[in-house]
């Protein structure tokens, strides 16, 4: 029996360099004579720029250049909208209206948010650049700003962008089954407005960009902490009016990300390097990061749920309003993700959703871990708990009555997904998952313990949330694979990690197909010169797309190895066996050729008698294009205690049953679950990027924007109940974001359960201790 590596909890190959300090993050890369950059950013949420005077700053010794918008005459930000070209059918069916989108690289005559870059100072070191930035004199004429959705939608509101009437930038409409207005009037109805606060991705490493101009090749090498090196390469090339081949993007070791996209800094630093003919580096600081990057969520959602006296759900209707900030690079991605996930694993035949992206004078909204799923799950799972309470049904029982039964799978949801394919839950067993989760958490026992807690005056409660998660979106991922003369298997793929363990998990996949040890597989994924095409790591897509293409390419490489060995050994392929890095005749293992020997022979093709040498080169390229997203799912149960004097919530225990399909490496998948839960916990209890009514950011350090710490976390128990998907050869589903989807809802439901019988209407995320006290004691 050959050892299988898919499914094994191998320690990661990435770890050694990371635990020893040998890893090379952006700030660690030595680049001789590198200049340093500092950005001058707007302090106003809305203002006209009257004048910019750089003369004093330019006198500082060490200052090399100061760029303002008027210096950017020969470049222009590329037009972006979404990573996906929405299909005409999708646009028609879901009544999509989208504006073309261009975010200025540097503000010319108007700033639209605090933090918007106005000028770029380049100096011999960062402190000089920052000191010089202080001396640049910018005269602003402040304008009225809009800081939230309601004020932006007021007919008299100032326009964030004169080209966007009514501050509404993108809209869509989804209608499945009977519209809610035509539903029978005897049904019970719940209506709530949910507020989802603005949160920030907050990787522990800030962003960074470095660029070097090579005049001999007329090429720019750009290092960036990005999730999408190939898309960034195209964006830079188009913006700088350069050939794509003239840009090389390299991604160093990356200290997390949690949210993607391209940013103006990623064009401006390469531009400066080209203009000055010298390497330039910009390292974002924490305040810049908290104000400018990876803001997400920030929604107001009106939701109506129709259900009957038996607790059966009949219809859900949503009005989704997203505070998009001043620019909208992701179009309707987030609100449409909410519509796509709003019904979760529940059977709700009639569904309507209308989404609008509302411009405000805040930082742009981008997808961050979960990207619409936590918001959608919060809304439906809170509503279901409210419905249960109105009928005096236990929250577990109402879910049992409404989860899509396993014999109704796959389940067509009657709408399209963002990729243009029908939205179909492809596989899974949601009722079984709930049963397992209730057992795991000891749900029935808890109800007895709860009585004892109450007798002691302790408010302890339990909350359930069930989610689905679309994972592995296309359009494709590519892989090139080869064998070198030392016999190592080399994998090149465009999906570029920032903590996801590609070097280990992709090696496990290749090792199984090629019957080698994962240590003999080397994964390259951080350099656009090594892999011609790639898409990136986001949307829980890498295991699905990169994993599948590596599997495909491994199969092709295996065929090449067999074919080549067959020629050299003069032996039929069917009589050959691959094992331990060798291809050998089944009956004469000692005559086998090692992968290294085959590589040597393949590279000296003149010695071979083969008529079609190109077919036998030991190099293969494959592309995997998923036909549709595959749906992971999870059931979460949280047990929390509320201090009803202070409003402090402590999560005591946490249980998850997850369906991530085939598991490549359980250590890695559990790690994603833990991290996702705690991200969701932070979003529910601690994190909010706050703005005042003038659209001034209030949370600009980690002392104001609180991330969960070790003391905030409960023991987490994760159980897997995998249902491999038929949509890819490995049967894998994405695992990166699902846990974030349910954690806020499970914790919120547990809070409400803990303080019952005092009824609270918990419709907001996050909930601070102060707000919880207000809900508990409205008279205060």
């Amino acid at each position: 029996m050959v050892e299988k590596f898919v499914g094994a909890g191998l320690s990661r190959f990435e770890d050694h360099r990371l635990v020893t300090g040998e890893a090379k993050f952006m700030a660690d890369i030595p680049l001789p004579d590198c200049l340093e950059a500092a950005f001058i950013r707007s302090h106003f949420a809305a203002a006209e720029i009257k004048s910019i005077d750089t003369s004093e700053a330019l006198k500082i010794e060490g200052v090399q250049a100061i760029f303002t918008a008027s210096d950017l005459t020969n470049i222009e930000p590329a037009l972006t909208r979404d990573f996906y070209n929405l299909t005409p059918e999708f646009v028609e069916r879901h009544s999509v209206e989208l504006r073309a989108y261009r975010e200025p690289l540097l503000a010319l005559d108007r700033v639209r948010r605090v933090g918007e870059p106005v000028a770029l100072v380049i100096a011999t070191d960062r402190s000089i650049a920052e000191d010089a930035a202080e001396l640049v004199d910018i005269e602003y004429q402040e304008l009225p700003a809009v800081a939230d959705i309601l004020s932006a939608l007021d007919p008299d509101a100032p326009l964030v962008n004169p080209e966007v009437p009514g501050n509404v930038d993108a809209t869509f409409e989804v209608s499945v089954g009977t519209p809610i207005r035509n539903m029978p009037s005897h049904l019970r109805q719940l209506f709530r407005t949910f507020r989802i606060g603005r949160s920030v991705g907050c990787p522990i490493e800030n962003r960074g960009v470095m660029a070097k101009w090579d005049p001999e090749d007329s090429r720019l090498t750009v290092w960036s902490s990005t999730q999408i090196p190939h898309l960034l390469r195209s964006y830079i090339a188009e913006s700088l009016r350069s050939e794509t081949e003239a840009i090389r993007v390299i991604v160093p070791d990356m200290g997390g990300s949690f949210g993607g996209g391209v940013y103006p800094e990623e064009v401006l630093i390469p531009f400066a390097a080209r203009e000055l003919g010298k390497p330039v580096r910009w390292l974002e600081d924490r305040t810049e990061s908290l104000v400018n990057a990876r803001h997400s969520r920030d929604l107001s959602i009106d939701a109506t749920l129709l259900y009957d006296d038996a607790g059966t759900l009949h219809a859900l209707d949503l009005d989704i309003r997203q505070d998009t900030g001043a620019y909208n690079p992701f179009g309707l991605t987030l609100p449409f993700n909410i519509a796509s996930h709003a019904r979760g694993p529940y059977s709700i035949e009639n569904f309507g959703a209308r989404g609008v992206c509302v411009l405000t004078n805040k930082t742009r909204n981008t997808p961050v871990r979960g990207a619409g799923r936590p918001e959608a799950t919060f809304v439906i799972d809170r509503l279901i708990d409210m419905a249960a309470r109105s009928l005096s049904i236990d929250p577990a029982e109402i879910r049992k009555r409404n989860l899509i039964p396993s014999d109704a799978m796959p389940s067509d949801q009657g709408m399209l997904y963002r990729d243009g394919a029908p939205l179909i839950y492809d596989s899974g067993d949601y009722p079984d998952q709930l049963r397992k989760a209730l057992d795991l958490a000891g749900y029935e026992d808890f109800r007895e313990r709860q009585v004892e807690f109450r007798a002691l005056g302790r408010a302890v409660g339990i909350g359930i949330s069930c989610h689905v998660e679309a994972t592995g979106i296309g359009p494709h991922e590519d892989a090139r694979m080869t064998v070198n003369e030392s016999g190592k298997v080399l994998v090149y793929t465009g999906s570029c990690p920032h903590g996801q363990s590609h070097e280990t998990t992709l090696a496990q996949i290749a090792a199984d197909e090629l019957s080698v040890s994962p240590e003999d597989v080397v994964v390259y994924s951080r350099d656009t010169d090594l892999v011609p095409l790639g898409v990136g790591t986001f949307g829980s897509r890498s295991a699905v797309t990169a994993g599948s293409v590596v599997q495909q390419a491994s199969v092709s490489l295996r065929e090449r190895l067999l074919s080549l060995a067959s020629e050299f050994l003069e032996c039929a392929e069917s009589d050959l066996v691959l094992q331990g890095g060798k291809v050998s005749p089944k009956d004469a293992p000692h005559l086998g050729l090692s992968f290294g020997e085959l590589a040597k022979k393949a590279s000296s093709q003149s010695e071979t008698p083969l008529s079609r040498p190109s077919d036998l080169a030991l190099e293969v390229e494959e592309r995997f294009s998923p036909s549709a997203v595959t749906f992971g799912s999870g059931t979460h149960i949280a047990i929390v205690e509320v201090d009803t004097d202070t409003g402090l919530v402590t999560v005591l225990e946490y249980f998850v049953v997850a369906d991530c399909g085939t598991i490549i490496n359980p250590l890695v998948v559990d790690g994603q679950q833990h991290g996702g839960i705690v991200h969701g916990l932070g979003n529910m209890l601690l994190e909010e990027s706050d703005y005042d009514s003038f659209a001034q950011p209030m949370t600009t350090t980690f002392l104001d924007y609180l991330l969960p710490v070790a003391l905030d976390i409960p023991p987490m128990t994760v159980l897997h109940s995998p249902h491999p998907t038929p949509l890819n050869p490995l049967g894998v589903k994405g695992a990166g974001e699902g846990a974030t989807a349910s954690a806020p809802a499970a914790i919120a439901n547990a809070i409400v359960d803990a303080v019952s019988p005092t009824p609270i209407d918990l419709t907001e995320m996050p909930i601070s201790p102060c707000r919880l006290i207000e809900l508990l004691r409205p008279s205060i």
Partner: protein
Amino acid sequence: MKNSFRSHRTVSLTVNGNDHSALVASNRTLADFLRENLELTGTNLGCEQGVCGACTVLLDGRSVRSCLTLAAQAEGQSVTTIEGLSKQGEPLHPVQEAFSRFHALQCGYCTPGFIIAVLELLDEPVPITRDLVRERLSGNLCRCTGYQNIISAVMSLLENET
């Protein structure tokens, strides 16, 4: 350096067992000194505001934020950074090994700071409980792991001791 208005001073200290003496700007942080003067880039900067703990190093055995400590304040003292735990080619330090075995890191950016904080914790002359581990590591932020595997890695080291 170029800015004449900055005062400089000579700092002598020991880093990972090696003696160093250097002329540094008075306002140079210990983190920048380690990273730029000594090219010890294993100490990572996450906030430069003293909150995230990524830049934690030991100064005479006590953990400090190297972003909030001036190089000059380390005069005459002994600094331990992540590079001091296992030299190239040597086996990993037990804390490093446990972090890998328990998958206590994902992106790994916060990891050197955590490992240094664990070193200090393991030196405590008090019984180390799970709750004490949670408390002592709450000065370090991690966005990837959710902390559980970090705590498990530390607890495994205690089990080995007894």
